[in-house]
C-alpha cells in the first residue's frame, strides 16, 4: 500500500483537525497559571473539605464516564448496521440486572456518606470566632462588623465594601443577605457559594489559612452590572487585623484648613454626602452649631445604600472590586507579597504615589460611563425616582481635584 492511500480524505482531515484543536484548547485552558478564582486550589479549611470531597467524586464519575462512553462507542462501531440479519432478541438476565442495580447503589452510597457529612460540617456554627454581615446590592458588596467580643473584640460597628477583611486562621461566620435582588457570594478558594436573599439571613463559614487576597465574584445573575460585582476576601494575621480594626474606628481627621482637601470636604459634603456616609463628617451652621452629616441613600438609591467612604483608601479596589485604587506596580507588590509581609503592605493602604487616579477620576466624572448602571434621571423615573448605582454628577475638573485630595486622606 502506498503512503497516500492511508491518508484521510481532505474534508475528514480538516474536521479532525478542528476537533483536536478545540479539545486541546479546552484541556490547556485548565492549566491557566495564576487563576485567582480556582476551587481546585483551596486556601482554607472549608474549601479544603469541599476539595477533599470533589476530587474523589470527580475521579469516580470520570472513570465511570469513560467506561460507559467507551462501551457505547464500541457497540456503535462494532454492531453498526451493515445489513446483517437481526440477532436473536432475548429478554432479562436477572443475575446481571441485580448486579447492575446493586453496584451503582453501592457507589452512590460510597459517594453519599462523605457528601452528607461534608454538608453538615460546612453548616457548623458552634465554633464561630468572628461574625461579619455581608449585604449584596446592585452591584457591590457591603460588609459590616457588628459590635462583638469575637474577631478579637469590636467596640463599634465598622462598615466597608468591596474587600472583606478577615483575621487569618480564624473561623469567621458570614451572615449573608441582600437589599434588592438575589445575589450569590463566592470566594472559590475559601468556600462554596451561597445565595444572598432579601429578607433572609444565610450563614457561610469563611476561613483562610494564610494572609493574602482571595478573589471572588457574584454568582447569581443580578442585573446590568452582574459581571462587575466582584469581591475580595483579605486575610490578615490576627494582630494585623486588630490594627485594621483600630484604624477603621479612628476618629475623623478633618483636612488641614485652607488645603485642597478642605475644599474637597465642602465639595464632598455638597455633592456626595447625601448618598455616601463618611463617619465623623460634620457641618457648621452659620450660627456656629455643629451637626453630623448623615447620608440618606434611602431617598436616592433603590437598594437604600451606597458604600461607606470613611476609610476608602484602606481598601485596594472600588466599585464592586472592579477597579484598582492602586497603580499596577503597587498592586502587584500587595498581591504578590509573601504571607509574612502581606499584612504590612496591605495596611499601608493607598498613598498618593500609589493612587490609580485615572480610574478613580473617571468614576467620579461619570460613573455610569465606566460601569453599566441604571442611573440616569430618565431611568430613575422608571424606578420610583431612585437610581440603581451611582449617577453622573456633572462635576468640573477642579472639583474632582478637590475630591480626590479629600478622598486620599480617608485612611
Amino acid at each position, binding site marked *: 500500500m502506498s503512503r497516500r492511500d492511508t491518508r484521510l480524505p481532505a474534508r475528514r482531515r480538516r474536521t479532525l483537525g478542528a476537533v483536536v484543536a478545540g479539545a486541546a484548547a479546552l484541556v490547556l485552558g485548565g492549566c491557566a497559571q495564576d487563576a485567582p478564582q480556582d476551587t481546585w486550589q483551596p486556601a482554607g479549611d472549608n474549601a479544603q473539605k469541599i476539595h477533599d470531597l470533589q476530587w474523589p467524586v470527580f475521579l469516580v464519575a470520570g472513570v465511570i464516564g469513560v467506561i460507559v462512553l467507551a462501551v457505547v462507542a464500541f457497540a456503535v462501531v462494532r454492531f453498526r448496521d451493515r445489513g446483517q440479519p437481526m440477532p436473536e432478541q432475548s429478554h432479562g438476565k436477572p443475575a446481571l440486572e441485580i448486579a447492575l442495580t446493586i453496584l451503582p447503589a453501592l457507589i452512590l452510597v460510597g459517594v453519599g456518606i462523605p457528601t452528607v457529612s461534608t454538608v453538615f460540617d460546612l453548616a457548623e456554627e458552634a465554633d*464561630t470566632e468572628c*461574625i461579619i454581615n455581608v449585604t449584596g446590592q446592585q452591584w457591590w458588596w457591603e460588609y*459590616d462588623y*457588628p459590635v462583638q467580643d469575637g474577631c478579637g473584640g469590636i467596640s463599634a*460597628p465598622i*462598615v466597608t465594601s468591596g474587600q472583606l477583611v478577615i483575621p487569618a486562621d480564624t473561623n469567621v*461566620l458570614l*451572615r449573608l443577605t441582600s437589599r434588592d435582588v438575589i445575589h450569590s457570594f463566592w470566594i472559590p478558594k475559601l468556600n462554596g457559594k451561597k445565595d444572598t436573599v432579601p429578607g433572609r439571613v444565610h450563614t457561610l463559614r469563611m476561613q483562610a489559612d494564610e494572609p493574602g487576597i482571595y478573589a471572588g465574584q457574584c454568582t447569581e445573575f443580578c442585573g446590568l452590572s452582574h459581571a462587575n460585582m466582584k469581591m475580595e476576601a483579605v486575610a490578615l494575621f490576627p494582630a494585623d487585623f486588630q490594627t485594621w480594626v483600630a484604624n477603621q474606628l479612628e476618629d475623623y481627621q478633618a483636612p488641614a484648613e485652607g488645603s485642597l482637601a478642605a475644599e474637597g470636604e465642602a465639595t464632598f459634603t455638597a455633592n456626595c454626602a447625601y448618598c455616601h456616609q463618611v463617619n465623623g463628617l460634620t457641618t457648621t451652621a452659620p450660627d456656629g452649631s455643629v*451637626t453630623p452629616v448623615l447620608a440618606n441613600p434611602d431617598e436616592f438609591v433603590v437598594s437604600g445604600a451606597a458604600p*461607606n467612604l470613611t476609610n476608602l483608601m484602606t481598601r485596594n479596589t472600588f466599585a464592586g472590586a472592579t477597579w484598582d485604587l492602586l497603580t499596577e506596580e503597587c498592586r502587584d507588590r500587595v498581591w504578590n507579597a509573601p504571607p509574612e509581609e502581606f499584612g504590612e503592605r496591605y495596611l499601608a493602604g493607598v498613598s498618593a504615589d500609589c493612587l490609580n487616579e485615572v480610574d478613580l477620576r473617571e468614576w467620579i466624572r461619570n460613573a455610569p460611563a465606566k460601569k453599566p448602571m441604571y442611573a440616569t434621571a430618565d431611568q430613575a423615573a422608571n424606578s420610583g425616582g431612585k437610581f440603581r448605582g451611582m449617577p453622573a454628577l456633572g462635576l468640573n475638573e477642579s472639583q474632582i481635584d478637590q475630591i480626590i485630595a479629600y478622598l486620599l486622606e480617608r485612611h
Partner: protein
Amino acid sequence: MFTTGSKLFIGGTVLAVVAAIVFAVSYDGDRAWVAGIGLIAAAIALSFLMGINLWVRDSNVGGMQADATTTSAAAQSRPGNSMWPIVGALGGALVVIGIVATPVVFKAGIVVLLIALFEWLVQSWSERASADPAFNASIRARLMHPLEFPVLGAVGLAVIIYSFSRIMLFLSKEAGPAVFVVIGALITVGGFLFASKATLKTSVVAGISTIAALGLVSTGAVMAIDGERDMHEYPTVSNDPTVCSSNAETETDERASQTVAAKSNVAATVIFNADRQLYVQQIGTGAYSRVATLQRSNPSPVMFRNLSDEAVRLKVNLGTFTDPATGTVTSQPVTCTTLVEPDGRQFLSLQFPKSSLATTQPYSFEVPEVEGATVEIVVP
C-alpha cells in the same frame, strides 16, 4: 392571475403596511418602535407568503385549469362540519365585551380568537391535503396533537385544582378536612370498582367521570361566587405609643395569635427570660448579648420570645429625632408587639433608614414597665 390564497396575503400585506404607516404618523410614544418593528415584520412575512403562494399557484392545480378545481382528487371529499367559525365568533364577542367591561375578558377573547384562527387554518389545510379523509385526519393529528393534548391537559388540571381550592376556601376550617376525607375515599373506591370491573363499558366510565367533573366544576363555581369563608387577620404590631408603653391588655391583644408561622429565618431573637431580663441572640452565635447590631436600610426580621411567667410586649424605640436648630424633639417613633403570653412568641420586621448617629436617644428594645429590661440596637 392572482390565486385565491395569494389574494388573502396581498390583502394582509397591504393592511400591515397601512397600519405601520398610520401608527408611525399618529403615535410617538416611548415604545413606538416595538409595535413598528412588529408591523413591518408582519408585512414582510405576509408578502413572503404571498410570493410563495403565487409561485406554487396555491400548491393547487394549475390556476388556469378551471375545471380541475372541481375534478381534482382533493376536491372530491366534501369538508366536514367545523366548530371553529362559531368558536371564533365567541372570541370576537368576548373581545367586544371585554373592551367595554374588563380587560381580562378582552384578553381571553384574544386568546380564543387566536386559537380558533389557528385551528381553522390547520383544519382547512388538512382537509384539502389529499382525497383520503383518513389520511387527512392523520396528518392533522400528527401536527396538532402534540400541541393540543398538553394544553388541554394543563387547562383541565388547572380547572380541577381551582375548583377544589374554591371548595376548600368556602368550607369552614373544621368541615374542610372531613369533606375531603370523604371525597378522597369516594375517588379511591370508585377507582377500585372501575379497575375490578374490567367488563364495564367505556361509555359508563366516561359518563360517571363526566358527571363527577361537572359536579366538581359547578360546585367550585357556585362556591367561588359565594365567596370564601371569613378569614380574620388580627394585627400583631402596633405603632401607638400609649399601647406600646404598657403591658395592659387591649382588644387587639386578646385576638392576636401567639404562634408564629414565619418561615423566614431571623436576624435576631429577643428573649425576655424568667428573671425578667432582656437579651438578644443573633443568628450565627448562641451568645446572649445586651447589644444588637442591626442593618441600616434593610428589613431585619426579629423574633420576640417571652420565657417569663407574665404577659408582656416588646417595644422598639425607633429613635428620637430632634430639630438641630431648636433642639426640640420632632419625632419619636415606636413599634411594639401585641401582648405575648408566657411561652409565646411574636414576629417583628424592623427597618432603620438612618444610622445610630442620627438619633439622640439610642435605638433600643425594651419591655415596658420592667426596670432595666432594655437591649441597645446599634445601626451602623
